[in-house]
């Protein structure tokens, strides 16, 4: 988890209790009024239990760092679209110019066309009308083009950042995802991006037209009349102060909004993903209360944002109206003194009025900007995460993969204090089928995950054909090594696509052949749409055993040099398991395989058995030899034999 992001949480919630659920004597959030600050989203509730995360080391420069990081992200998103940005600025210039000549034309009409017409000269009037309508149409055209250009820019940026977050989250290591939670990634890619879209679609418009009108009108005002112009511009000073205040307040609020919406999404997705358990154990009422707490929190945070804006935006308006009154009074005196014409004053007043509308737009931009930068902080925090298991920048090429796997001096632990493997040495020759046995927690799965490079060892190396797997390109690594786990995750969509995930280039015939190999083809054909049947969310259309068979087919289709099976047959009945094993025996010919299974039937196809205990390999040899030796394996094997009776 990004420490800066967590730090940000602390920055915005200095009052957030840093409690560990265990010794917390703080009252339950459900007892406090919903409008009290609920500690739900930041503090740990007792029911949530204690997780090892520290949220309280903040340094003073974190805020500056966050701002810089989000600015850099925004800039990098806009940079490739400089052309569009330029076009946008040009369009706003045209739009504003055509918009601003309006009052001037009216003034010209009053000051020149009226007397001219009275004198029988109709040309100034024709000119007035033609230019008024012309500027109106130009304005409309500019606006229409602007809408398209801004949409093109916004959508291009969104597509870019979506792709970046998606790819980055895919690159990040499994260990990162175990901590960050899917809900938060989803929140980064959905609601956080929405704020960015709001900024680009509505805010940028306000920013550019706001700045341009303010600058443009200021210049026009100063040219028209210096004293009046100075009065009008003096308003900028109080506005700057207000903006500074708003910046401070809204930044805090919007950070909270982003964090709370993430908590809400986490609760939502967790409920929907664990739905069967939720309803089976009647957790609905409790869920409802938990959701209510975070939902109310979100409403409160969002409401706070609205309230802050409700104070900021009318204040700008008030300053504008005050200035307008002063300009009017002073202007009237100057007209009476003969310093300026009436028409000029009229134009002046129209301009001043127009200047404060864009100022309000600027306020709105600032609002979207604050909201989006809070989201950008979160997004850039995710993007800043470095994959701990990264693809090497200069991968070592590897040609034809034979499948020789070796561990040398490998030490590994999920946390530094509790090591799972210590100085493990292991050599698996190409083509060997190895069964890995041992009690739960002996380190079998860890060893398998290290071969598949879900993690990197703390020290030592894992090699494939003598090449450190950390030096292999991802494509080479996955071409060489594939792991099938007990968790047979299927994606919604056709069965065929789920199998084809093993090798997207596979033809339908190859897909069906893979399914037939593991003995699930007949079943799939019996589904309503055969191989095109949608397996539904997480493959819920299929049973656990069928899902495992599909993931086997997927692995066979992938056709790797090294196949790792981690409890991949646990949900199969004996005939299916036998069918898979028959298939394995054929498929594994000339392939390296590491098989973890509690049910020792697998051992029957193994060339070699490794017995693991407490992170070490305690027995190593052909199955028959180990059984004969009468060690740990022999005992387990006997027990297993007995269990089949």
């Amino acid at each position, binding site marked *: 988890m990004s420490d800066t992001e967590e730090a940000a949480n602390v920055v915005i919630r200095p009052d957030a209790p840093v409690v560990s659920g265990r010794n917390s004597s703080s009252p339950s959030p459900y007892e406090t009024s919903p409008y009290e600050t609920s500690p739900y989203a930041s503090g740990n509730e007792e029911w949530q239990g204690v997780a090892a995360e520290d949220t309280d080391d903040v340094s003073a420069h974190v805020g500056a760092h966050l701002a810089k990081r989000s600015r850099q992200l925004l800039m990098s998103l806009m940079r490739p679209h400089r052309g569009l940005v330029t076009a946008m600025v040009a369009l706003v210039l045209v739009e504003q110019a055509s918009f601003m000549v309006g009052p001037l034309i009216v003034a010209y009409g009053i000051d020149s066309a009226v007397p001219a017409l009275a004198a029988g000269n109709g040309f100034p009037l024709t000119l007035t009308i033609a230019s008024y309508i012309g500027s109106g149409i130009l304005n409309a055209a500019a606006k229409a083009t602007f809408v398209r250009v801004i949409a093109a820019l916004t959508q291009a940026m969104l597509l870019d950042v979506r792709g970046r977050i998606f790819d980055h989250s895919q690159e990040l290591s499994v260990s990162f995802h175990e901590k960050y939670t899917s809900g938060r990634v989803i929140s980064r890619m959905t609601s956080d991006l929405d704020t960015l879209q709001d900024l680009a679609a509505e805010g940028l418009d306000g920013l550019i037209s706001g700045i341009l009108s303010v600058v443009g009108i200021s210049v026009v005002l100063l040219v028209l009349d210096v004293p009046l112009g100075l009065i009008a511009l003096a308003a900028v000073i109080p506005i700057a102060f207000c903006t500074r205040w708003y910046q401070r307040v809204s930044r805090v609020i919007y950070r909270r909004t982003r964090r709370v919406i993430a908590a809400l999404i986490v609760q939502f997705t967790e409920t929907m993903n664990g739905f069967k358990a939720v309803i089976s154990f009647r957790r609905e009422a409790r869920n409802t209360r938990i959701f209510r707490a975070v939902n109310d929190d979100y409403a409160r945070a969002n409401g706070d944002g609205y309230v802050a804006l409700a104070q900021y935006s009318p204040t700008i308006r008030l300053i504008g109206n005050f200035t307008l*009154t002063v300009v009017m009074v002073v202007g009237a005196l100057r007209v009476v003194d003969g310093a300026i014409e009436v028409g000029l004053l009229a134009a002046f007043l129209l301009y001043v009025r127009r200047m404060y509308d864009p100022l309000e737009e600027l306020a709105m931009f600032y609002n979207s900007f604050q909201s989006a930068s809070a989201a950008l902080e979160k997004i850039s925090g995710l993007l800043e995460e470095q994959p701990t298991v990264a693809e090497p920048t200069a991968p070592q090429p590897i040609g034809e993969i034979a499948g020789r796997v070796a561990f040398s001096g490998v030490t590994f632990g999920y946390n530094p204090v509790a090591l799972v493997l210590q100085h493990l040495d292991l050599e698996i020759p190409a083509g060997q089928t190895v069964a890995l046995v041992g009690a739960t*927690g002996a380190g079998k799965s860890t060893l398998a995950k290290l071969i598949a490079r879900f993690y990197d060892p703390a020290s030592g190396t894992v090699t494939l054909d003598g090449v450190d797997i950390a030096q292999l390109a991802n494509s080479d690594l996955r071409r060489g090594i594939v792991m099938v786990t007990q968790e047979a995750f299927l994606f919604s969509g056709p069965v065929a696509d789920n199998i084809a995930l093993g090798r997207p280039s596979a033809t339908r015939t190859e897909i069906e052949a893979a399914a037939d190999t593991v003995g699930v083809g007949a079943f799939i054909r019996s589904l309503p749409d055969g191989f095109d049947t949608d397996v539904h969310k997480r493959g819920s259309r299929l049973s656990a055993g069928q899902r495992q068979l599909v993931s086997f087919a997927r692995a066979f289709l992938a056709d790797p040099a090294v196949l790792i099976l981690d409890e991949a047959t646990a949900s199969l009945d004996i005939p299916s398991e036998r069918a898979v094993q028959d298939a394995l025996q054929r498929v594994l010919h000339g392939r390296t395989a590491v098989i973890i299974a509690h049910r020792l039937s697998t051992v029957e196809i193994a060339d070699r058995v490794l017995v693991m205990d407490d992170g070490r390999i305690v027995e190593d040899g052909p199955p028959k030899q180990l059984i004969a030796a009468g060690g740990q394996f022999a005992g387990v094997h006997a027990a297993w034999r007995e269990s089949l009776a």
Partner: protein
Amino acid sequence: MSSLTTGAAASAATVPTVAPRLSTVRSLRRLVPYARPAAPAMAASMLAAGVATGCGLAFPLVIGAIIDGPITHRDTSHLIWWGALLLALGIGEAGLFFVRRIIIARPAMLVEARMRQDLYEKLQRLPVAFHDRWPAGQLLSRAISDLGTIRRFVSFAFIFLIVNIMTFAIGATLLIVLSWQLGLVVAALAIPLVLLAVIFEFKYRSLSRRAQDQVGDLATMVEESVLGIRILKAFGQSGHFSRQFLRQAGALRDTELTKARVLSWLWSAMVALPEIALGIALLMGVKQVANGDMSAGMLVAFFGVAMTLRWPVDSIGWLLAISNETAAASERFFEVMDSTEAISSPADSAVSQSASLMQAGSEQGPSGRGPASNGKAGHLAFRDVYFAFDDDPDSPVLRGLSLTLEPGETVALVGRVGSGKTTFTSLVNRLHDVTGGSIELGGVDIRNLGLAELRRRVAVAFEEPILFSASVRENVAIGLGSDPTATARYDVSRRNGTPGLDAPSDDAVTVVADGAISADDAVDAAVARAIRVAQAEFVYDLPHGLATRIGEQGLSLSGGQRQRLALARAIVSRPEVLVLDDPLSALDIHTEAAVEQALASVLADTTALVVAHRASTVLLADRVALLEDGRITTIGTHSMLMATVPAYRDLLSSSEYTGTSSTRSGGNPTGPRLEG
């Protein structure tokens, strides 16, 4: 390869649209009940906005008066009062802006929050079949971005749509009063504007809907890509998945660009038409001033007012856009809200509950067996059960399944992969409903029991254990339920001597009033016992023991560890009926043996249905039922079936592969078909 994304999209497309497509106004009208609590605030906000606009309209009038008065007459003596009036209007306008915003801020949030809460609660009541069918991202996008759109509509767009139309009407009237010829030219604008709005609604609405659906599809892909990260990594297919994601994101971009194109036409018309009208008005005005029919101040005032009307007219374009988006969002929201809660408590569940309790209570104690035990608690009977999935009604998974479990009896369910065992177990606590026949618990059709009561009496351990992001203790204690009334009933039934619940007094479970499971020692005792039985003592070695957070937001556990916790959760409440779906598949042989031994004590007096793939699990059961072709074809003891039923032997025997097993076992029941 046809992509998985098309799969996601296809499944989104197959999501049934419950309501026929309503017009924008009708879709928006459905929001009224939710918006009602905010109605006073909306009305007040509208009033404030209206009056503020009035102040804005008065501005040019006062300025016109100043030009025609003090300036024309070169008399500055009353100028200060005019200035004061102007300032008062300015303060009034700004103040009302503040009121307008502040008044709606909280109520609009509450509308959104209430809709979201209702959606969440509704989703918890909808059946599993609904959740299987609806992609997760579609639900999430409804709960988050659609409701955000609705909030913006309630807090802003709706108010301004009304205020701006009224402003236009008032402004146009004012202009007519100032100068009827010029005013009429501007007022005539309304006709093309309305026409435009209608055409726009027609085009924009379906685009909004498409964009929102695509947002939901994207969210689905994101969720799947993260939840399936291990698979994508294991096969190195992240890049492939990412290309599909980008393609889908590109489709969304295309829709958004089309939306922008449609909007740009509307917008340009909304801008150009008023300018043309004003150009004509200017022509007439200048002529009138020149003829002396109108004063210069009047013309300035006219244009001041006319220009104040610009924003209201301009803005109608995107206000209509937001309204259309809101209508589509409302449609999507109500699609879920209108879904039928196919599986719900019966209307008179309270009655039937007490009836069944009486029944349960009036019978004498535990484990009474025999044919006359139909009405007893723990008696579970499947009568000619049929089940077919919604999308495949013609080939039912279960076809006339009958099976009776006597109170306290353990029956193992054996069948080939895909024979419908898991489906069968999901019927007992009504995750799905039978499509034919019935299931009776204690002599009462389970559809006549309250859902909460049924699920309290029947506990399930799923094959794929689902843990929540919560402490170990909470994850296990969830099995005790969190509903105080349910727990009260639990106490009642316990006093009445329901089998399996003859717990020692220290197991009395209390639930505090707010529903959180109390820190009561009794809960701890129940949890500790369940952990002991499930051989899940490893939890005490976790960093914070029972208080360690596990699940997605906490420590990750191995498959075997998760499975044992799920088992502990199922047995913690000592339910009347236990349904265990291959509960030990991920355990190593020693642990499995230890769990089985401990479990035997629980199963001795609990009615249990255990899905089994292995002989070792089968041995937990008193009888074994063989599920073939959607029916129980054989039932008997393990040794009897091994001896007499080849299909059974084929399924469970460890002997060498015989060659017949890879074909689907035929439809001819080979053993005597017995009923309990």
